[in-house]
């Protein structure tokens, strides 16, 4: 019997409440995902470098204490094994500068963490459509 492997998403966000919200939004969009999380850039990089199969998509909060989201992204893009993974940067800020700096640093996309949870869920669903192969 052959099992289809679940697609995996890594959330990197210093706020555990935000991680939970994003996980719930992901589950409502695609129930069959495997979601992992890290609360800082260093932990995320360790997981990526030592944790077996790389994720299909990475969501990184732009503003984190210590290693920032952008620094984490740059490390990923500089790593030969990881650089091809789609990375979407997330920010609560609605400033255009966050989007611009994310794309400049090599992000595949940018997602504004809308104040409205339902709008955020819809936006996240669009991201999955665009970046997760086979997402219906």
């Amino acid at each position: 019997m052959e099992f289809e492997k679940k697609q995996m998403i890594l959330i990197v966000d210093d706020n555990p409440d935000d991680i939970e919200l994003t996980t719930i939004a992901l589950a409502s969009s695609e129930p069959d995902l495997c979601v992992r999380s890290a609360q800082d850039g260093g932990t995320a990089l360790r997981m990526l470098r030592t944790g077996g199969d790389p994720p299909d998509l990475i969501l990184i909060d732009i503003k984190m204490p210590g290693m920032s989201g952008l620094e984490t992204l740059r490390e990923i893009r500089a790593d030969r094994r990881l650089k091809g993974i789609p990375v979407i940067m997330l920010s609560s800020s609605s400033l255009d500068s966050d989007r611009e700096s994310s794309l400049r640093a090599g992000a595949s996309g940018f997602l504004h963490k809308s104040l409205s949870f339902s709008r955020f869920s819809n936006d996240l669903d669009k991201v999955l459509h665009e970046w997760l192969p086979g997402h219906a």
Partner: protein
Amino acid sequence: MPDSALKTCEEKRRHTEAALETTLQELRSCAARLEEANRELESFTYSVSHDLRAPLRVIDGFTEMILAQKGPDFDAETLRKFRIVRDNACKMGRLIEGLLMLSRLGRCGMNRGKLDMNFIARESLGGIRMEEPHREITAGIDTLPPAEGDPMMIRQVFDYLLSNSAKFTRDTPAARIEVGSIEKNGASVYFVKDNGIGFDMKHYDRLFNVFQRLVSESQFEGDGMGLALVRRIVKRHGGEIWAEAEVGKGATFYFTLAPGS
């Protein structure tokens, strides 16, 4: 020229050079302080934008989930109180957005160009009518002289002023809104006039302040940001804004878009 006169001239030159150097140093110091203040403002805006919004969206997200999962089990009173929590989180979000918009308006670049004020006012009025299609408002736009400015920003000015007029004429039996212009000291003065509830001119000094409301929110919704935003836009165009009103008889808001208008 005798030696003494030359010496005096030389001394004067030295004095002038020293004074100039002092002025230059003061200017450099002012520029550095201004740069520092701008950096602080930028950092403050970012904090408002990011740090204050983050907890709000957690509140919105989890209360929405609780409402969806447990809402049907709530009794009416619990449901009412729960909605108050959600409405207030929502309101705080709007206030933060308003503050951000105000901050951006002060700093963002302007796309100045010739403005067809008639077109902008008509478009804005059309939008306001669409929001409340059931309402009967008699609205007229006089022929307005053209102006110079940023079309998006001036559209916002009309949007705010006209939606204010629509809001505050809601209880007026024959609501009337008029957009027009007069000439004052060679400059075009545009106005938006209504026959709504008006306001007491003794509160005038607070009218354009941020988060200031002259009527209670339970009577007329709003967050007290609109007129502060309008004033910021008009000021950025080098213009002035002022108002005249009388309780129960309506209000008129005047603005100029100097120079060159």
